[in-house]
Every structure is written in C-alpha cells, then in structure tokens.
C-alpha cells in the first residue's frame, strides 16, 4: 500500500525543442499532402503493389522486402482504399476512390519524425543543443528529403528506420555508460522524456530501458532491411559499432566473465536473433495477406502456385497426389530460365541436316514450351505392360523405377540416343522415337530419380516431387538447355540429354504439375469415379519456411531488365548534385515537382565529410606520436560521431559503385541524411577546438549563420519545385536551372 503513503508523481520533462521540431517537421511534410492529385513518378509502381495488397493478390517485387510495401498498404487500409485504380502512367489523375492523403501519410510522418530524430542523435552523440538544432533544421529544409517524404515512396521510411536504429543504439550505449558514471559533459539526461525515463528506471545494464533501447535497435535495423535491401548497410554499420564496443567490454577486466558473457548474449539476441525473427515475420504477414493468385505466379514453382487461391490451385485441386502407371501428366522444368516451360513434343521432326552441316536423327522433336498446350501431356507407362490406363488399384511409381514416357497426342516414346543435340553438340538429342530409321533402335527407358525424396521407396507425388529422368542406356539426364531452337523448332526451348552431369542442377529437374489418371475408355472413367482420387491439400503441405525461402530466393535472383532511364544517374553525379529527377508536371500549367536537393547543403555536407576525414587523419597521426590535441572525452565523441555519421554516409553511398542496377538520385538520400548530421558536428568541433580566440569563434559563428541563411534562401527559392504548388514562368524556370545538367521542364507554348 505504498502508493497511499506517498503520492504518485509523474514528472514529465518535455524538451520544447523536440516538440517544436516535430511540429514544424509535420507542417513541412503534411502541408497540402494530397496535392497533386495525380500519380507522381514511382507511385506508379508502389501504387500497384498497394492495390495488390488491397485485393490480396500475390505479387513478386524484386526491388525490396515486403515491409515497406505493407506500410504503404497500411495507409491504404486506413483510408479504406479498395485497390481499384489502374496505375498505368505517371501523371494520371486519381479517381475519387483513392485516399491520396492516407496513402501518402505514412511516408510523410516518417519524414517529419526524422527531423526531431536528427536533433536527438546529435544530442546523444554528446554535442551541444545548438548543433543538434542545426542538424534538425538542415534535415527540415533539405528540399530533396521533403519531396521524397511527401509521396508514396519508401526512401523516407527507410531513412526513418536508419536514424531510429542509430538513435536507439546511442541511447542504449549512453545508458550503458551510466554504470561507469562517466557520462559526457553535455549529457542530455533529464532533458527529454525518454532520458527522464532512463534516469528514473535506474540506468544500469540489464535495466528495463537498457533492454528497451537494445531491442529497439535490433527492431529498427530489421525494419530498415525490410523496407529496402540497402538498409542492410546501416544494419552492418550498427553491428560493427556494437562489435567494437563489445570488444572493449571484453577487454574490461573489472567485469566478471559471466557478466561479459551475459552482455554478449544479450547483444547477440537483440542484434542478431530479433532482427532475423522480425524479418521472417514480415514475410509471414506478407504471405498471409497475399493468398490469391496473380500476375507473377508463373515465376514461382508449381507447389508455391498451388498454395495460392485460384490459378494453378484451381486446376490442381482434387487431382490425385500419387503418380501411377498410366497417369497423364504435364512436366514442368524447375529451372524456369529463360522462361518457365513444360516438356512438349509435336508432329514435326528434326531437320535432316542442320545449318552447321551436322546431321540429326530426323525423329520427332521434343522441346520445352512456355505455354499450356495439349501437346504438353505425357503418359507414364510401365515398360512391361502395354496398357496406357491406370490399374485398379493404381500402382504408384516410386523412386528408382524404370518408366517410359509416352507423348499423349502422338503416342510416341520419349527417347534419347548418341546423336548430338541441335544446339548443344556435347549433349544427346532427345526425340520421340519414330521407327522408320531401323539403324537407330529405340532407347526409351528412363529411370526415375526423385531428388527431394526422404526415403528410397518414396512415391512420385504430383507437384511436390522433384524428379530427374536418367536414361537407362546412356546415363544421360533429361535437361533443359535454355537455348531457343531456330525456326524449324518454332523457337521453342531445346531439351537435351546431358551426358556428363555434374551434380544437381535445376535445369535437369522436373515436376508434375497437372495430373490425372488415364481414362481413355468409358469403363476406365467409371473406375476413376470408384477410386475417388486422394484429395491433396498441397497448400498445407508447403511450410512457411519453404515458401519464404523460395520467395526470398526468387526476389534476389529475378532480374528485371530495366536498362536505361532518362533520369538515371551514376553515383558520381550525386555528391555535388549534378542531376535531378523530374517527378511530375502539371497537365496544363508549368507547376512541377522535382527531386532536387538544396545544393548549398549538399555541397557543404560533402565538404564537411572531407574536412572530417582530414582532421581525423591528422589527429590520429598526432596521437600516434603521443600528442593529444583533444581531451579524451571529446576525442571519443569525435570518433563515435565520425563512425556513425561519416560511416553511415560511406556505407550507404560507396556500395552503389559496385551495383549493376539502374541508379537514381534518390538512392543517395540515406547517405545524404547521415552526411547532414555530420555537418553541425564538424562546425561545432571547428568552433570549439580550432578557433583559438573568442574573436575567431564569433567570426566563425557569424559565418555559419550566414551560411545557414543562404541555405534557407536556396531552400525557399527551390520550394516551388519541391511542392509543385506554384506555376513558374519560363524565365523563372530558366533562372532556376543553376546547373547545366539539371533538367527542368519548360513548356513550349
């Protein structure tokens, strides 16, 4: 009953700076959010995915994991969007059923919250409130960040989670430092609500707030990765910094071994296990939401397709599970490259002489055909019997059985022999045997090899079994070579017998997709009725992990062939803002939205990074000679700020040089945000440590103020291009074209 004796007191310590920054952040990002009421730039892609979510149709997007898309879809869900909008071109007007404001709300909120977070980060790094304020204001007025936040795009969300990961790690790290009682000079404890909580809850290791911030770090990291793959670089950076700190912890001999172990375990759980679990969770929700078949089904395996409502599941539902002698099947190749296709044959034969002068067997062609066709049906036959129908009871085919494959329409046997294949001369030709060529005996026995079997007596199952056909006479393996046959083969895909097969390759693996028991006679059909097929609920057979791994693998390997874009750019163009992207142009006036940064901020941020690097090197060399220019704690602050801000810039920027995909200016925004955070850090450092007299300090302060004023001015000048709210005259537009490489649209009347 202690609370009766002492009054319950809640002390809230509110940092008005943060509140004010949040307010202006919201204002700048949410102002006229629903304008323009038209599809702007990449909204055309993300909008499609939102529609898919609303209609719960499965899709595959190789650009990133599903969390970001789901967040956007959440906006649609809040706004009651029914998904009925044709996202076909940039600039199309939204119909009235599209809740534009709601759809754009989440990215805008993320963008707005980045402003106070920038403040908090610089603050937690141990710099002055003034520097923190500067960082937040720079993020606030950076035009490119504003533009990107106000649309249905994911960069602002990504930046939000990147910053959140860094911020919560810093909070965690600082709460850890309390234990040693050497909090930095400008400790923010007691100034903000969270810090107050921290202080209240006794900032010791393994306290509640300690756990909270540590877990939040992990969660934020996985959210960043879940929004876009590039988030992984920030994750790695945070992991790296945490590893260095953990290494120091190991070296701390005042701690007991058990204590160190607990510390390490806690970090491992929070920074490795939790993110992995969260990442899986995204996919779980994603797959749970998208349960209907859709346009991207073809890319996935048959089993995956069958797990979706409609599509293949509609065909395969109720078909017998176990393939028996006499079954009629279609065989799909598991490789799916260049296109998913089915084993196929048709009346035409191989040409007697190829263009290269080689000869063929002149037997019936066997190909792989990417469309559903009646010629894709094959009958599994027992070589010892003549009948092509299923017995009663059905005799299932097992691993290791010898079978013959009979082409349904032409009743010819799948055959291979020692004749070079048309396009892959090292492999054997595969044909349907025609017996007019007596010198070539039929070699049509195939041994069934179930690749994913669990035991050696496993039965061949529809859709689920991955099988290989090994030719009995020559040990060749039925394989899709991936080459397109010339005109005589109707440009279908070549199928060959691979003689020297080295290990497992997907191109040699086939699975049964459609399956029915043979019913060529009336009587047999009745039999079929009697032995009602075993219902196969395949969707339940495919576990979440199997679906996840397949989906993830496809997302990473599917290449969309976007080669060139009018506004694509190279990483070198980004540092000094040599490029822009026109996002939208008003259909009648010349009001337009551009992704165009505040060039003063970009240039000075790049400069600050350089200055930081040089100063850092200089101090490092001096320290090596035991000359300590900085007091130890400011040196540590300086290093940590560099590791997180300059490091954040580097890891978010440099990897793009190695990427082969089409790059755009907006890919630079996360790196830019980190670079902006470094700017006030460098200013404060110069002012505190490099300006020797008060006079110099004042002068420098005045310079910074002047510089900031110019940044504000530039930001204001470019504002029409950021919000697109004002139509500018051609001469004004020309005046805004400060760089020749900027592409500003000028309407010709």
């Amino acid at each position, binding site marked *: 009953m202690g609370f009766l004796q002492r009054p319950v007191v809640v002390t809230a310590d509110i940092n008005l700076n943060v509140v004010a920054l949040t307010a202006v952040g919201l204002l700048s990002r949410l102002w006229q959010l629903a304008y323009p009421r038209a599809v702007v730039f990449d909204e055309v892609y993300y909008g499609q995915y939102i529609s898919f979510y609303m209609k719960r149709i499965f899709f595959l997007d190789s650009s990133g994991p599903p969390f970001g898309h789901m967040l956007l879809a959440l906006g649609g869900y809040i706004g009651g969007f029914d998904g009925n909008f044709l996202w076909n071109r940039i600039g199309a007007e939204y119909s009235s059923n599209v809740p534009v404001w709601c759809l754009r709300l989440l990215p805008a909120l993320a963008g707005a919250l980045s402003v106070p977070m920038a403040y908090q980060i610089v603050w937690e790094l141990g710099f002055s409130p003034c520097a923190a304020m500067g960082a937040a204001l720079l993020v606030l007025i950076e035009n490119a960040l504003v533009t990107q936040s106000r649309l249905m795009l994911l960069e602002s969300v990504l930046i939000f989670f990147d910053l959140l990961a860094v911020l919560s790690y810093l909070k965690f790290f600082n709460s850890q430092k309390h234990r040693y009682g050497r909090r930095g000079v400008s400790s923010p404890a007691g100034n903000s609500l969270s810090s107050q909580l921290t202080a209240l809850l006794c900032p010791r290791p393994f306290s509640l707030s300690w756990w909270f911030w540590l877990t939040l770090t992990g969660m934020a990291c996985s959210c960043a990765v879940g929004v876009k793959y590039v988030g992984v670089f920030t994750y790695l950076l945070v992991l790296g910094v945490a590893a260095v700190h953990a*290494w120091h912890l*190991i*070296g701390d*001999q005042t701690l007991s*071994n058990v204590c*160190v172990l607990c510390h390490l375990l806690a970090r491992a759980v929070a920074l490795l296990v939790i993110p992995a679990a969260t990442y899986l969770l995204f996919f779980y929700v994603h797959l749970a939401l998208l349960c209907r078949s859709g346009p991207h089904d073809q890319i996935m395996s048959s089993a995956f397709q069958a797990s979706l409502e409609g599509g293949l599941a509609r065909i395969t539902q109720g078909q017998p599970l176990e393939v028996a002698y006499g079954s009629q099947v279609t065989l799909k190749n598991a490789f799916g490259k*260049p296109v998913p296709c089915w084993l196929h044959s048709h009346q035409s034969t191989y040409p007697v002489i190829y263009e*290269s002068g080689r000869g063929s067997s002149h037997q019936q062609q066997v190909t792989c055909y990417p469309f559903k066709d009646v010629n894709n049906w094959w009958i599994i036959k027992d070589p010892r019997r003549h009948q092509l129908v299923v017995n009663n009871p059905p005799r299932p085919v097992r691993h290791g059985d010898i079978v013959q494959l009979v082409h349904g329409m032409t009743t010819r046997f799948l055959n291979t022999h020692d004749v070079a294949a048309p*396009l892959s*001369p*090292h492999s054997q030709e595969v044909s349907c045997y025609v017996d007019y060529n007596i010198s070539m005996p039929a070699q049509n026995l195939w041994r069934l090899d179930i690749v994913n079997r669990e035991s050696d007596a496993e039965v061949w199952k529809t859709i689920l079994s991955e099988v290989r056909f090994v030719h009995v006479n020559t040990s060749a393996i039925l394989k899709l070579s*991936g*080459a*397109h046959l*010339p005109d005589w083969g109707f440009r279908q895909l070549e199928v060959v017998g691979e003689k*020297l097969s*080295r*290990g497992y390759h997907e191109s040699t693996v086939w699975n049964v997709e459609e399956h029915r028991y043979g019913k060529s006679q009336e009587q047999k059909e009745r039999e079929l009725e009697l032995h009602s097929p075993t219902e196969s609920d395949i969707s339940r057979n495919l576990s979440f992990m199997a679906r996840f791994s397949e989906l993830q693998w496809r997302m990473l390997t599917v290449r969309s062939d976007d*080669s*060139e*874009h*009018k506004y*694509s750019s190279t990483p070198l163009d980004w540092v000094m803002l040599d490029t822009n992207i026109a996002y939208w142009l008003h259909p009648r006036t010349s009001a337009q939205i551009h992704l165009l940064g505040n060039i003063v901020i970009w240039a000075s941020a790049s400069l600050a990074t350089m200055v930081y690097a040089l100063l850092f090197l200089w101090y490092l*060399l001096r320290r*090596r*000679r*035991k000359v300590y220019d900085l007091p130890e704690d400011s040196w540590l602050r300086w290093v940590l700020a560099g590791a997180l801000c300059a490091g954040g810039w580097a890891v978010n920027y440099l990897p793009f040089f*190695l990427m*082969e995909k089409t790059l755009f200016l907006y890919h630079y925004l996360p790196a830019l945000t980190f670079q902006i955070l470094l700017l006030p850090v460098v200013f404060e450092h110069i002012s505190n440590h490099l300006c020797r007299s008060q006079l110099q300090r004042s002068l420098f302060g005045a310079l910074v103020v002047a510089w900031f004023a110019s940044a504000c001015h530039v930001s204001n000048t470019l504002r029409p291009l950021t919000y697109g709210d004002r139509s500018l005259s051609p001469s004004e537009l020309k005046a805004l074209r400060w760089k020749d490489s900027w592409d500003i649209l000028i309407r010709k009347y």
Partner: protein
Amino acid sequence: MSFKVSFSVPRPAATPHSRRCWELQFLEPVFSRARPARPSRSVMLRATSRLPAARAATTLSAQPRGRRPAPRRRRKELHFPGHPELPLGDFLAGRLARPRVPAGRRAILRRGRMPPAVGRGLAGSELRPRRGRCGSQAARAVGPDVAAEATARSPKRPAPGSRRFEAAGRWALLALVTLMSFATRFHRLDEPPHVCWDETHFGKMGSYYINRTFFFDVHPPLGKMLIGLAGYLSGYDGTFLFQKPGDKYEHHSYMGMRGFCAFLGSLLVPFAYLTVLELSQSLPAALLTAALLTFDTGCLTLSQYILLDPILMFFIMAAMLSMVKYNSCANRPFSAPWWFWLSLTGINLAGALGVKFVGLFIILQVGWNTLSDLWHLFGDCSLSMVRTQVTMGKHLTARILCLIVLPMALYTATYAIHFMVLSKSGPGDGFFSSAFQARLSGNNLHNASIPEYLAYGSVITVRNLRMAIGYLHSHRDLYPEGIGARQQQVSESSVHLCGSRAKLSAVTEPAVTTYLHKDYNNLWIIKKHSTNSDPLDPSLPVEFVRHGDIIRLEHKETSRNLHSHYHEAPLTRKHYQVTGYGINGTGDSNDFWRIEVVNRKFENRIKVLRSQIRLIHLATGCVLGSSGKILPKWGWEQFEVTCSPYLKGTLNSIWNVEDHINPKLPNISLDVLQPSFPEILLESHMLMIWVLWPLPIWWLLYELLGLHKCGSQISNYGNSGLKPKDNEFTSKPWHWPINYQGLHFSGISDMDFRVYLLGNPVVWWLNLLSIGLYLLSGSIVAVAVQRGARLPAEVEGLSWVLLRGGGQLLFGWMLHYFPFFLMGRILYFHHYFPAMLFSSMLTGILWDTLLRLCAWSLACFPLAGGIHAVGILSLLLGIAYSRVLGREASAQVNLDPLGEGLDSAQGV
C-alpha cells in the same frame, strides 16, 4: 607487419651470441659457415646467423633419449623409436636430429614443465628475441624488459661443429623439398604431346612474340613474353599453329615452354616452405606446407602446361616470400639485406601484375603490410620528433622507391618491350585505334598518307571509340518485318548499320595475314545538309567540316543517308532506330546530324584519327551510338547501332574518322599522327579493362582471335547463349574450396590421354577444415588476450605465431579469393589456385601450432610430447598416401572410356 614473438622457455644458461639471421644464411652461406669458427667476431657476422628453426626438430630426438636411454645408434635410426619403419620419419630424423644436447642440459629440460621435445621444438620455433642484425622483432613486440629477460634465458650456444651440421641439415631439407617438387613437376612433362586446354592461347601468343605479330589479349604481356622467350631459347620457331586443344605437337619443340612453366611451378613449393619457416620458425610447419603443395594434384597439373598460372603464382609467392623476409629485417633498416628484400618485393610485384591483373591482390597485401609497418615505425616514441621525421622520410622514400616507382618502371618497361617486339600487323590490330594501327608494319594504315582535316565531299570510314572494333557500317539487307520502321519495308530499302564484327572475324582465317581490307560498305560521304551538289566539283572551294556543322552522311554503296526517327531500335527499346533512307542521297530532314568535336584541340576542325566526334540527330536530339548488343541472324550478328535520347556521354557514342579520301586535299603522312608511348599504354589498358568487363565482348574476343575452346562451336549458340564456352567449364567461386568440380585440360571424350585439373581432395578438404579451425582457435586466443588472461610463455609465443603469421596468410587467402565473388566475368577453377597456396601455408602453421599446444596442455602425461611429432608425421603420411591413391584412381581414369571416374585425378 612482421610477426613478433616472445617466448621464454626456461633455459639453463644464457649467451647473447646465439642470435643469427636466417636470411643471410641463404644469401651468404659462406658467412654462416664461417661463423662457428669465430663465434664472437663482430656484430655483423653474429647477426648473419640466427638460431635456426631446424634445431626445433633436432631436439625431437632429445625426448626419447631422455626418457628412455636408447642405445646409441647411428643417427639415422635413432630418432623415432616408435616409428622406425616410417621412411619420412627416418628422413626427418636423419636430417635434423642429432645427439647434441649435453647431458646436464637434458636433465634440466626434463624437469621443466614442457615436455622436452616440445620445449626444444619451441626453442627452435620462436621465440628468441633477436637483437642482432635482423632479430629484434620479438624485442619490439614485447618490450625491452622481456626481451632482456629472454636474452638472459637464451640457451648456451652449441658447439660450432653442431651448428654446421644443423645448417647442413636445413639446407639438405630445403634441397630435398625442392628436389621432390622438381621431380613431381618434371615427371612425364612431355605428356600428353598435344595442345592442352589454354595452351592453345598462351602457346599461340608465345608464337606471336617469336613471329613479332601484333595481337591483343586481356592480360598484361609479361607472362606471354616469358613463354615466348622460353620457346625462343629452346629452339621453338613459332611455326606451330596452336589451333585447338588436342593438336599434336609432332616435331615442334614445345618442351622448352613447358619446362619453363614447370620450373617456375616447381619453385612454388620451396617458396612456400621458406615463407612458412620464416613466419612460424618451425620446420614441421614448413614441411607440412611443402607436402601439401607437392602432393596436391591440382598444383601439379597447373604447373605442367604452357599457362600463365605457374608464372603468376611464382611471382605472387616470390613477392610474399620477399615481403616476409624483409619484415624480419625490419629492425635493421637500410642494410644491404633490407634493401635487397625490399626491392625484390617490388620486382616481384611488378612481375605479378605484369602477368595477370590478379597480381593486384598481392600488391594490396604488400601495401597493407607496408602501411602497418610505417604505422608502427611512426608510433615508435623512443625517437624524438625531429629524428622521427627524418627517419620516417627515409623510410617512406625507400618504400615509395622500391614498392611503387620500381614496379611501375618495370611494368611500363614490359609494355615498352611488348610494343617494340610486336611490330608487325596481326590479329590484334582491329582492337586498337586507327592511330595505333599506323605503327604496325603490314597494316594498311602503315606509312599511309591521307588528308589531315575533314572537308565536305570526303569519303570516310567512321569508327566507334568504345567498341574499338566497330566501323559504322551498312548493307542492303532490310530490317525484318515487325522491327522498327514498319512504314517503309516494302519499297524502300531500309538499311541497318552495324559495327562490322562479321567482317573482322575474317581475321581468324589464317590466310589473311595483313590487316583486313576495307569493306566498301563502311564508306560514307560527308555532305552539307542543305545542298545536294557534288562537293567534289573542282570549281567549288574546299570547305572544311567544323564543330557544330549540320551534315548528312551518305552511304557510298547504296546512296542512302544515315537516318533516324522515332521508332524503337530493334534491341534497345528505349533508343531510336537508325536506318539508311532516301534515294540517291535525297532524303528528308531526319537525315540531318550535327557534328560535335569532343576534344576540341584542333581549331574546331576535324582531324583524321585524332578528333573524337559525336553525331547528334537534329530532329530528335538523340546521339548516334552503338549499344553493344549483338543483332540476331538477320543482322549478321553485328552490333546494333542506335540513336540514344540520353545524352549522357559515354564512349559508346563517340566516334573517330579513320580512312579519309578527298582528292582536293593534300595528303599528309600518317606517321605524324602516331600516338606517343604513354598514349599507347593508356589505350591498351582502357581496352583491357573494357574487354574484361562485360560478357558478350569476352565471347566476341574468343571468336575474333580464333581462341575457341576445343570443340565448342560458338556460332551454334547463336544469339541465345552469349557464353564463350560450354557451360561445364565455368564454375562459381563457392565451388572452388570444396573441390566441387574440376576442369578438363585434355581429352574431352575420345582421347586416350586425359588430363583433369582437380585438387587432391584430402589436401583441399584439410585446407578448408583448417580455415574453419583457424578462425575458431584464432578468435579464442584473441578473446583470451583481450580478457587479459595470463598465458604461459610458451602458449603466448604460439599464439603470436598463430595470430601474426597465420593472420597474414589468412589475409592473403581472403584477398585472393573473395574478390572473385564480385566479378561478373566468367570464372574458372584455376582462379582459385593463388588462394589455395595461401590456405595451404595456413594449414601448415595451424596444425603445427595446434599440435604443439595440444602437447603442451597434456604435458603431465608421459609421451604427451610425442603428440606433436606423431600428429605431424601422420598428416605428412596421410597426404602422401592420398596422392598415391589419387595416382591409382588416375590410372583407372585412363582406362575408363566413359569418364565416370573423373572425380579424383590427373592423368599422370
């Protein structure tokens, strides 16, 4: 960074004279042999010899003798009482172990914590602070006090005679390792007597050097020059064609070239042996490494043929060895051996880079080593600031001189020789710019004379700068139905334009010895856009074409104009189609192009060969370029030419004028336009980098140079498979360390003699296991050190070996392996072998150290000391035995016509 060890084994007596420099024993054996006679002569002489690692092994004998007084037998039978029957043990013992330790000493050792064998092994392995000329690494690592202490504990210098034996034993061991290596590599070197695998390229390129015919290859020239030199010296006349794998050499002398490669390949084993010895100071570790490499079938196979790999690996290993050697001289800067090893490092770096660009990795390693070395020097606060600056300046200059300037000079020199030797026109001409081709005798641009500046009415050929092989080309064939310009397929002949690859492939025919003759379909007439009057009319004045002019380009053969319009190009859908249009030069306004000079050095006029021009389409604003994609059959598989609306300037859209005919202008000799040597160097590098990158061009290169891999008929792949060779030859980097699949060197299906490049599985899997074990043990040790655990001196010494020596090797392995994951080009199994060398060395050090640690921790049990000896011996024997097994398997392979037993062998 050099590794630094400190080890203090309790020793009964101390003398400062037992520190000697192992390096110089190789350099100056005379000195070291002279040394025992006058033990305390001078600092310099003292430092020439250092306690040899060999003594580690010598003392293997001490333990059994100490524990069980064996009857004094002759040395050879004495030392491994448990395994008298093992030949290798016998050998080891014979070479190394000698009854040398005085009895009193033995007693003390026995009383020590360490089993004597291990203790003595460590004594050899380590740990002695070397303060002589080359030795203070240990002192640097642990600080002066420990060093002094360790010095105080140094054992008594053995009698001079024994040291001579020791040195002899060590030399003999090295000689034996070398001998084994040479014996295996040269065994049946002449088989098979036909061209194997890439011999077809490198042998051919060697022949080009002998014939002085110009060619182009993606690798720098040094390796092929050396092959050519070896062939030249051994009497090969360059007449063998090296057309395809499987061609019989017959009377041609090929053994010189193979012998040269095998010679360099054989040296890898002693190099690895010495490197490991230097890093770990432990003979068993070195022997283990040598055994791994000697008995590895992969290394063996790769060293036996005319390939770049043995040469490359030779330079890599030599650079590594000299770097390690130079590290151990670090305490004696600016001495003769220091300079020697430093400059040798630089020379080997140049060699490695000069053979293949893979050499960059070892350069990175040496660079990193140098940086950390300088960093430590810089942090050496025993010197005053001023002294430091002077010293640092000297150090820095020395390194820049030896590791940057010297390699650069040598590398450039190889190119100078390359271009000097290859003075005749040959198959590589087409890759290079026209200005370059003017240098080559036999080329039709050689000694040619053409008008210097472009004027209206000139007949020209236009060549793409980026494509390096493409001329703007047109012919009478139409674009097929459904592609691009649909409106004029019936009556108009729309002409498509291509870089003329098909024409160039004629180069591959052996009959064509000079540069290709001009195809008339490459000729264009440059005309003013406004008039159709013949500019060659003598009454009109000559008018030069200038930057910014609006022109028309008329195809000379078909009299159609270069034309573009808003139709998508056949392959690059976002670009516009380029066609030929019009009749007899009359077209429409879509035929107008603005000509822009990119490098405007010549007063806006357009200079033949040297001006780089862009053609901007006037109506659509797009720029003429080549997309680099290859058209299907209907386009004769030539390159697609498009008009790109994206004006971002790349080399794809830059052209230059090559041939130039204009009777109204005076001709000048092309010689004045010849590029200077730096320009040539730059051009050939740009070309190499560019060719190495994208896949289709790589494929093209093979076609152009006639470098088909055996039997693969590239043309059959058509457009669908832009792969250079059969899918089976290529592999993924993750295949390599697990020895997943090998590489056929010879005998695809029907030849009786089959060579298959595949590592000895025992060796490779042991290496793989060792890397994992190393990471595990390394991190345990590192954590222990970080936790401030007080390690016993022996363990500490071993941990240093593990962390420093092993760390360097692991770094080398990573550097030579991981970058391949980033490479887009086609990869082969043999790319892994440099990394494999490093991982073998790591295996040697790891197992030796682990076994020593094991023996140490079990020291309380009797015979624990034997663990090390037994472990090393069983590893050695296991490796050797696996090789014997492999040989049997290979015999089966030779008998097996179906090739089913191809997993494990090489056909020797």
